[in-house]
């Protein structure tokens, strides 16, 4: 049972990785002059949208969490609206944190905001898919021994890896190499993306290796 779950998780994560790679490759054929570096803002939008949709679709297909008890259409709509509000709020919070970390306050607001949208996609959107608009569950998942299934462990790992990647992405900015990718926010968004991809790959492997130690509390 568990092996099957891990394999499903691995497949889903590979799908996500694949979609990230595709966002960098496919638009070059469709759109003349598209490069990840040159038209970075466009890539940010495309990547956020693609990863977001893939996540939502995967969630709908695989249904890793239990279905909510009430499932009336009105309830669903309110849930959806709540999710949207949460996502938007997380974008704002990420934006504020990034600015507090030293991003320009007034200049390049678009870049910063799109970067925060990307980060939200990598972290908040997954939480929303997996746990719904339930802050208490989020708090639980992101603490020691808080994950209750391999899906939640994977969520933990990918989210932390994305944020860490974004953090490490800030390191090359002050260097005097004069590379095009040292411009704000390219290195950070690359870092976040690489972190996300690494998290997606690491998570199933880590779960696989630690399957003996991992005991999830039953609901």
């Amino acid at each position, binding site marked *: 049972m568990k092996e099957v779950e891990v394999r499903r998780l691995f497949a889903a994560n590979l799908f996500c990785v694949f979609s990230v790679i595709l966002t960098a490759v496919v638009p070059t054929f469709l759109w003349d002059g598209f490069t990840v570096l040159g038209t970075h803002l466009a890539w940010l939008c495309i990547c956020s949208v693609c990863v977001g949709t893939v996540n939502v679709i995967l969630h709908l297909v695989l249904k890793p969490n239990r279905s909510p008890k009430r499932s009336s259409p009105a309830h669903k709509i309110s849930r959806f609206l709540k999710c949207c509000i949460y996502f938007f709020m997380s974008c704002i919070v990420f934006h504020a*944190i990034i*600015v*507090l*970390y*030293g991003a320009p306050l007034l200049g390049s607001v678009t870049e910063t905001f799109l970067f925060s949208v990307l980060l939200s996609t990598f972290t908040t959107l997954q939480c929303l898919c997996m746990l719904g608009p339930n802050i*208490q*569950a989020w*708090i*639980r998942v*992101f*603490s*020691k*021994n*808080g994950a*209750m299934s391999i899906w939640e462990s994977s969520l933990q790992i990918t989210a932390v890896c994305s944020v860490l990647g974004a*953090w490490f992405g*800030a390191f090359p900015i*002050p*260097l*005097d190499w004069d590379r095009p990718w040292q411009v704000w926010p390219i290195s950070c968004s690359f870092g976040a993306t690489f972190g996300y991809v690494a998290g997606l790959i690491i998570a199933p492997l880590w779960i696989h290796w630690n399957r003996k130690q991992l005991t999830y*509390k039953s*609901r």
Partner: protein
Amino acid sequence: VDSGEWDMLIAHFLGVDHCGHKHGPDHPEMEKKLTQMNEMLRSLVDHLGNDTLLLVAGDHGMTETGDHGGESEKEVNAALFVYSRTPLFGTGPPEEPEAIPQVNLVPTVALLLGVPIPYSNIGEVMAELFSGDGDTVSAALQQLSVYHINAKQVDRFLQSYSLVAQDLPAEQLQRLQELFSGAVEEHTQLLDQVQGATLVPPELESRLGSLISRFQLYLREARAVCTQSWARFNSLRMVGGCTLIAASCLLCYMAAELAASSDSFYRSCLLYPLLWGLVVAVVFGLSHVFTQEGLDLLLVSSCAAAASQLGFFWHWWGRHPKRALLVGSQPPLASIGLRQRLRAWLGLAFPMGILLFRCGAMFSDSFVVAEARVAPFLLASLVLLLVGKLHWDGCLTVTEGPRQQVLGFSSYRREIWYLLCLVAMLLVCVRLSGFFHQCREEIPQCRPSLFLSPLASLRNTRAKNLFYLLCVALLAGLVYAVRSWLRHYGNLNSSDPLVLFVRWGFPLVVLCIACYWAVVSSAEDSLGKLQELVQVAVVAFPWAVYGLASMGLLLLLCNPMTVFAKDTRESAGSIVTPYLGVPSSEVDFLHVIPQIYKRMQESQKSRLERGSCRATIAAYGLGSVYSAALVIALTLLGFLLMLLHSERLSLAFLLLFLEAFVLLHIHTHARGLAGDAEPFSVPWYAVISWLLAASQFFYSTGHQPIFPAIHWNAAFVGFHLDHSTNLLPAVLVGANTFASHILFAVGCPLLLLWPFVCEVSSSQKKPKKEPREELQEVEEHMMEMRLRESPEKFSTALLQLGLKYLFVLGAQLLACVCAAMILRRHLMVWKVFAPKFLFESLGFVVSSICLLLGISLVMRVDCAVSTWFSQLQRR
């Protein structure tokens, strides 16, 4: 070039350099680039006039891989191409051109342009370019005059240099001097003879030639002497110094870890090694006295330090086997210890990782340049990581009720919001402090913060007034905040001189500073008639502040107690007047009866309350007596340092105080939430964040570790004319430069004290309802008085805190020193690494001294509290 509206054109072709770095010398790309350069030169040559000289020089060569910066032949050699339409050489150009030092370009170009040779030049003119188009004699005469000018300039430079620095060997200077004077003498003789026309060409030519070669000899030898003594690194001493610093850091770390473990530690591991070091120093000194050699103070002190460190490690090693034996006898305990140690190591990893990043950043010139942004980034990361770790460990959440426990839900404690607000405030402070940065010239697009310029430079009167009012309001706010903090903890009740000073002296200091700012920032011409008064005021107000602040600090040292004691012990029995015989009159009755009534009432009252209370002494503010003293000292220092900075930097200082306050609160709350069992040891993250904040505010008070960024005008605050000595301005400028180092180092003991101070705020409400007397009884053992309960632990904790602080400081210094040592051939070493090293080491010295001062202030308060208690007991 064609426009002709120029005297000198300088073109810099970066492409060749780039290409060489990227591909190396033998790459096809390089060939392409060089061909491009050739074409460029060819086209340029076609446009040159007859009186133009074209010099094409590479500033360095490259190795096979395209690198440079070393001292290999290929790296230091480059081509020099000289072109002019008028023929330069009488004969054809030499077959095998000689290599000339790069510095020769300076005097040559200067003299060709007809400007004086730069003062500090040690190069030699290229004589070929001065031959002109006459015959050989006139050419030689011209060359001679050029050499003469050049030699005179070098001689002047060497003389004035040897007056201020002693690093050129005296006997060689003497030799150079003789060479020069001999050549000059001959030169004047020769010129006389030429004017008198007593010499015929063949002899004249030979004498001219020999004189020129004498000048050449002089110039070359001067250059050789200079390069020999300037570009010299003593690698043995460098490695020795680095080892010494590294060993000191290790010592601090180990001592901080060991300090708590045992009592005999002090004697065996700290006192004896100190004696060892002293003995070695004395032995060295004596040997030098007997051998009559010059005493190298640096060598002696480093040997003494090394000896004492060896002593420490030897003693430590001697104690080590015993402990190992102890552990070995109880194997199960050992394994638990190992696991705990592993966990402790993991817990250490995150603050130490941040410290590692900080130290690693010193090795990159870009990161040193950008350090003003690196330090706040790391500080924010450290604090957010702390919150994340607390959350991960589940310290922030409580499981509420069985139902939720089943569901696995947990909600945050109420305190968490407070903690999050504090963190948000810290982040905002950190971000705001970024608006006060000074610029380095390495970042050309950077604009220095407008807060750095003095108010007097503002043209707009309205903005000036506004800023002035804001600054004064902030000062007043600071005083108000400090006073209300003291009042909150009851340290403002007594009538001691110190408290009176806080009440009345602080506003007076602010008034003086405000007046000084007003006088300084007012426009010069608006006070035309009052010019003399202004002159007096500019000096008088700073002196008033200096005087008041030093008076406050003296008061603090004399009597640091800010405790208001209310004695409620009755001297029983003495209330009743002694019996004076039979009451004779009505008046006596009237006198006695109320007394008897009073006495009865009191005995009744005491019988009623006997169970709950023993009336003793109510002491207000005893719980925060240590921190109150530190806060007062910090505020006074803050005033002094603000006075030394430009007016609008008081905003930065306010941010500094706010951030330190928030950091202390975060530390306290994180500790409370984590439920630390060890109240007497300050965790590493607190120390590291404190130091990160210190270096952050070094930049946020408008400083940079480069010499042009030093605020020299701080030396003239309160001094209208020049100083007679160098010491006072050095102290003033040093205090200005290392303001944040001073404040944070003095405030360092607060890290230990603050959790105890804040303890009361949670438990204050409870005892208030109970009888007053009991409150005192309870409170006496609360807050900082808990430190007095175990004086041994208190002193250990102070030592440990100091050692931790020194370790972190030392680690930063070590990284800086290593960077300067390893990268001593780096292109940026004189621009970035060496100044950074100097600033960092000076900061280290200042921080260490201030740390000692802060700790000794706490110990002074401790002594005062002890005497206070003993006085109470005697009464």
